[in-house]
């Protein structure tokens, strides 16, 4: 049985936390936890000292560490933030595989020969990582990626297993910042011994782990001692793979990635620019270059992310989609919209912009976006016209509509800016008990109009706790206008929503009323009074 290929693994501890802290501007030394589906996904060292562990329920974690800052785990952010680190490492050691964000594997042969020894190569990697802003990275060297990763995780914990030696750097040249034990090199052939005391759950899934525990197999060493053929018969191919890993003769190799072409553009402004139109003008050339570079390799961009830094240290990042593909003018438009919101082009900014960066988020082959032989369809013309209107009024100025779920009319209409994807919403087709009958009002007021609905004695009509009205309505005045007699009415139709949530709870009574001009209104009675929600006109 041959041993696995000698492999180096660079591990950045708590990478998700570090990436999230950088994005949100939080000090990673504070207790921070990332959650996924209500459970703690990862946490900072300070939080760990307070007793927060992975898999803990959020409430329990907050109980253990009262000052805990909680953020949502974002896998995309993880990858994105790791990309500069990968590029930095690739600059000194080619052929790097990203095992997951925060963990890199590479074959040991090249760097060891180049740097003249495993320790030297490891320290070169650690110095590069420190230069990229990753403090406290660890390096493990062993036979095969799995063993090397376990070595990297074991480094710095003071655990010296078997013949593994933790180095403290070159004693002849004690460079500052070399924390002791950041590198753990397992001598060739000793990987199995190094792995032996580790728990078996590292190689097997939860079910198999439980089964192995019941069989009395608790460590990798015990698992590796089982006969090869028996493991394969009992646990199948996956079991055999895990068995190989546990025995330190992993067959998988480092699969180095091909560095993707770099399309992103970044521009620094010195002196900082204070006006939107200045910025748009200054960026135009780079925007053309950005699109041109992609076009040269037959790609079009359908989604970009715009990142802006201002001189006060503010950071704004937003993704923009395009219904077709971005042209340079579209890119400049998105930058403008992100800056000005709904203001006008010559409006001043709150803080001057020092840096602008455009990252392509979605690229596609031009082949999928080729124009037809007779030019684009009519929809393309529509798109160009609407884009023009959008550049006049801002991104939110032109919207398309969809019908969402809900009981109140305003909830049911979903307005999406032109070019954006409709958000995932509750289904409109669901029954929604308490919603209106099929006939929908033609005018739905964005802001409800105050109305006065009074009975025959000119006293406001009230609805009591049991949903009974005080007297039949006799006269209606909308928005402080002239009172008109009520011809017909029906109600109250109660709508009670989210009573368990004090902030978003809603308890209203609806009425349909026809006034004397034959105009029908949908009125709403809430705690504050009467409102017109919509008009059937």
């Amino acid at each position: 049985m041959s041993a696995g290929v000698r492999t180096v693994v660079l591990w950045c501890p708590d990478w998700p936390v570090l990436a999230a802290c950088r994005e949100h501007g939080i000090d990673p030394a504070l207790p921070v936890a990332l959650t996924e589906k209500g459970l703690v996904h990862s946490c900072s060292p300070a939080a760990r000292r307070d007793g927060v562990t992975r898999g803990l329920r959020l409430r329990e974690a907050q109980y253990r560490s009262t000052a805990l800052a909680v953020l949502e785990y974002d896998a995309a952010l993880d990858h994105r933030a790791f990309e500069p680190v990968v590029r930095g490492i690739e600059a000194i050691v080619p052929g790097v595989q990203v095992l997951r964000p925060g963990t890199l594997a590479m074959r040991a042969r090249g760097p060891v020969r180049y740097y003249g020894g495993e320790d030297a190569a490891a320290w070169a990697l650690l110095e590069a990582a420190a230069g990229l802003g990753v403090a406290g990275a660890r390096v493990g060297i062993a036979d095969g990626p799995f063993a090397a990763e376990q070595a990297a995780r074991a480094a710095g914990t003071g655990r010296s297993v078997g013949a593994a030696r933790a180095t403290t750097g070159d004693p002849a040249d004690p460079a500052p910042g070399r924390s002791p034990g950041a590198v753990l090199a397992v001598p060739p052939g000793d990987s199995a011994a190094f792995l032996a005391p580790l728990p078996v759950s590292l190689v097997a899934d939860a079910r198999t782990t439980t089964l192995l525990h019941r069989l009395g197999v608790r460590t990798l060493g015990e698992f590796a001692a089982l006969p090869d053929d028996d493991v394969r018969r009992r646990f199948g191919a996956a079991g055999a793979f895990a068995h190989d890993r546990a025995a330190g003769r992993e067959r998988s190799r480092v699969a180095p990635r091909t560095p993707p072409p770099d399309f992103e553009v970044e521009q620094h402004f010195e002196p900082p620019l204070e006006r939107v139109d200045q910025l748009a003008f200054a960026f135009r050339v780079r925007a053309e270059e950005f699109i041109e570079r992609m076009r040269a390799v037959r790609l079009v961009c359908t989604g970009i992310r715009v990142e802006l830094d201002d001189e006060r240290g503010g950071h704004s990042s937003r993704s923009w989609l395009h219904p077709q593909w971005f042209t340079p003018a579209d890119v400049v438009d998105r930058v403008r919209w992100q800056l000005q919101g709904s203001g006008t082009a010559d409006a001043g900014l709150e803080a001057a912009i020092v840096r602008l960066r455009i990252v392509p988020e979605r690229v596609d082959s031009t082949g999928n976006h080729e124009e037809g032989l007779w030019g684009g369809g009519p929809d393309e013309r529509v798109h160009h016209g609407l884009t023009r209107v959008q550049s006049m009024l801002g991104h939110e100025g032109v919207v398309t509509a969809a019908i969402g779920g809900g009981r109140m009319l305003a909830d049911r209409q979903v307005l999406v800016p032109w070019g954006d994807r409709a958000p995932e919403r509750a289904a409109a087709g669901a029954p929604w008990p308490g919603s209106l009958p099929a006939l929908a009002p033609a005018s739905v007021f964005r802001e409800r109009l105050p109305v006065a609905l009074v009975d025959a004695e000119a006293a406001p009509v009230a609805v009591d706790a049991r949903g009974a009205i005080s007297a039949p309505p006799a006269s209606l005045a909308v928005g402080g206008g002239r009172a008109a007699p009520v011809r017909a009415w029906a109600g109250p139709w109660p709508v009670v929503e989210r009573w368990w949530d004090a902030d978003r709870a809603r308890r209203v009574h609806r009425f349909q009323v026809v006034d004397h001009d034959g105009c029908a209104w949908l009125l709403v009675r809430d705690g504050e009074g009467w409102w017109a929600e919509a008009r059937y006109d």
Partner: protein
Amino acid sequence: MTAPRPAPDGAIASEPAPAARLERVEELQARIRGMQATRLDTRAVPTHPALASVLPGGALREGAVVQVEGSITLLMAALAGPSRSGRWVAVSGIPEFGVEAAARFGIDLERLVLVPDPGGQWLTVAAALADVIPVVAVRPAGRLAPAEASRFAARLRQRGALLLVDGDWPGSDARLELERSDWTGLERGHGHLAEREVVVRVTGRGEVGRGSRRRLRLPAGDLGFAAIDEAAAPSAIRAVEPVGDHEAAIAPERGEADGPTAASAPDVVHRPEFAARAS
């Protein structure tokens, strides 16, 4: 066109009162003038059949400016025809445009564009929309000079776009407005709105001289629009009309808010009740 010849079928049905015959003649003349388009190649925009019976010429025309006032439902009826035939429609400056009602009335939301707040740039926005979208509805946010309006109309004719205006527009081709509306289904304390009958009044330049009226179900019980056949069974409005004379029929209806009259007895079911309450 000064001496209208009686239409052949008018001669056969000689029973109705002279006023009714005159009206019939006028209607036929309007149709003739509608067919003899004043401009070259003005093509018809697919129009909802209910609305087609109202409009001079039987259809909305490309390059025309039609005022649709006081009713978003009527506006939706005008948009539903083109939208159903696959055209894009745009609505600018009407923030309360009810999307759900639009979808139920047959406007395809995939090809509906809304510009809720064009603000002061409403005319520029309307022009930009009319360049690419064949049917545009706008609510003017200010007064428009006649010169601007005619420049805009020229642009519409060039693009073949139809402009529906909810508001004032100098020199529009036609103007539709609701003269009265009667809801059914809702009573005093029970029921819910089901359908309504409206009288749509059409006035306009040249083609429709004095204005004609037409009764529609807007919307009908099945969420569609339908013209009401004048010869059908007596309905609420029909019952109070003195035979033949429309002008006379509408006037007392409108004046009725001042004081209850006995003539409204067979009208909407709940009205006598109201009269009793108010007196």
